């Protein structure tokens, strides 16, 4: 299996990847709390972007409602923890199952009824909005008033209950992100990855070749929604508060997909690169605004908007493909 994962990858790429990993492993030991929180944000967007990328980048199905899966994952794990004392590592499986079920229902309806392209994207938004308003009135998790997890002191790390310091969260998230990266590489180099490529590029030709399009699209949706649920669980236990208005919002869905789009849709490293670039730029912008004593709501998102506009107009494949070429890291398989 390892041979398959490494097949065609230039040595230079592995060395650079190793250096990046080493940097991420030791970075928290040298940086302050603020930079650590930024790094957590980077990893969060890298992981979630990777999850979205499975559906859009690999299988070509544009979802603009991924906040649905983040929210369902977050609320499921948090509610199980608060109401029944079920720990996050048990709850995460239920969260994944519920998110996957939601994804499969949407996928089934869309793919069975032949809803594609723009209509599919709108359907994903519609379901996310539907759920958002539904949770606003779902009193078991306190509706629009927000749902809160008990906050504990940072001095005690309890990884089993995901209670502890940001440092602990960082390493857990790093592990998840690395595993997701390897998992996606494994998917892409296998039969399923080639099927997805065929479905994304030429669905009719793929069907002619005997690929069960419906089944493989459904698998993509299931994997993507399940992975996204995990980031929701992380979100719930890291931030300790959930509001339907925020977690299910359309803005959140768009924020999640900016990283992979700017990095490069469909590439493995795109979401990671995009998360770094976008978060770093946004934080830098924030600091500049604060330093200038000039705090306006909305500046960050206007900036995001222009980044997105710039990338989609002049770098339609994101910044990773040209960067990869420049670094001479192209896949030789």
């Amino acid at each position, binding site marked *: 299996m390892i041979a398959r994962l490494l097949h065609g990858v230039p040595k230079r790429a592995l060395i650079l990847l190793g250096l990046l990993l080493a940097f991420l492993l030791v970075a928290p030991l040298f940086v302050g709390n603020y930079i650590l929180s930024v790094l957590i944000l980077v990893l969060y967007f890298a992981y979630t972007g990777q999850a979205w990328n499975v559906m859009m980048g690999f299988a070509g199905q544009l979802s603009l409602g991924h906040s649905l899966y983040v929210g369902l994952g977050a609320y499921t794990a948090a509610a199980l923890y608060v109401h029944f004392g079920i720990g996050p590592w048990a709850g995460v499986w239920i969260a994944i199952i519920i998110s996957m079920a939601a994804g499969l229902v949407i996928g089934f*309806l869309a793919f069975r009824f032949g809803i594609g392209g723009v*209509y599919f994207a*709108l*359907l994903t938004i519609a379901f996310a909005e539907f759920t958002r308003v539904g949770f606003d009135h779902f009193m078991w998790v306190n509706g629009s008033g927000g749902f809160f997890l008990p906050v504990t002191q940072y001095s005690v790390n309890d990884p089993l209950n995901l209670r502890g310091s940001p440092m602990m969260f960082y390493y857990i998230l790093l592990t998840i992100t690395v595993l997701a990266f390897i998992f996606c590489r494994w998917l892409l180099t296998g039969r399923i990855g080639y099927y997805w490529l065929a479905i994304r590029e030429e669905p009719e030709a793929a069907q002619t070749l005997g690929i069960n399009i419906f089944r493989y699209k459904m698998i993509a949706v299931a994997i993507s929604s399940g992975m996204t649920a995990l980031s929701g669980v992380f979100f719930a236990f890291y931030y300790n508060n959930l509001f339907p208005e925020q977690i299910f919002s359309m803005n959140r869905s768009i924020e999640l997909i900016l990283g992979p789009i700017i990095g490069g849709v469909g590439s493995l490293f795109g979401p990671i690169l995009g998360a770094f670039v976008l978060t770093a730029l946004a934080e830098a912008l924030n600091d500049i605004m604060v330093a200038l004593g000039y705090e306006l709501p909305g*500046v960050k998102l206007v900036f995001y908007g*222009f980044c997105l*506009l710039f990338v989609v107009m002049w770098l*339609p494949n994101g910044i990773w493909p040209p960067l990869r070429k420049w670094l001479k890291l192209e896949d030789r398989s």
Partner: protein
Amino acid sequence: MPAELILTVAVQGILTGLVYGLMALGLSVIFGVVRVVNFAHGEMMTIASYAAIVAFGAWNIDPLVSMIPIAVLLFAMGYAMQAALINPFINRPEHSQFILLAAVAIIMVNGLLMIFGPDARNVLVDYALDSIEVGPLLIDKVRVITAVLALAITAGLFAFFKLSRIGKAIRACADNHMGALVVGLNVKRLYALTFGIGSAIVGAAGAMMTLLIDTTPNVGPVFTLQAFVIVIIGGLGSMPGALLGGVLIGLTEAMAGLFFAPSAKTMFGVAILILVLLFRPQGLLGRKA
């Protein structure tokens, strides 16, 4: 619950729905011809609403008057957007177009947020609270006026597309892109014109909307979604469909607000959208693709 109350709410819902329908009509016209989904539609409407609010605040101009220059302004904006941003994207994949317009939408919402702040604003004309008595019903005067205007604008647009040369040329582009090119129509200019017309309509709707609802920057995305819901229910590209969809959504929201909670009303609209997408994806009055 008394029958008069239910009937009053229903009529008000239908009247509001006609203005919703006018807003969605802009989206429908653009999609029907250019085949690009304007993801910044509600945001453009919000810009028009703020223009009307500023005109009223600064010079005390009634939104029903300022809607004419505002429609012209939005026409120019739509024309420029199509010519500069969207025309180069005509042959790009759907998701690229979508992301392009999503980026424009994000810039618009947050630009408005930077300029006007998050507070709700409205226009209080002196006839804002007048009502008309129809038998046992008491109907808001502004709703009647805006609904009639919405119908009149729709009729005018319909005549424009059926009778004028430019209208016919635009319909030719929509029916057969290649054929339109072959007979020598300047398709890119006609696309820009269409986007301008769709934007002018949403501009007029935005100015009227200030009489009906409070405006905040964040209503932009809500109305984008609303416009999608309406045109998909009515049938993307169908002009009567947009009005019908608007009326249906207006009625549903009014009833949902009356029988459940006003905050839950969007859920019902979205639920109808999901049902229509599944069982009649071309919409109630749309033609099969």
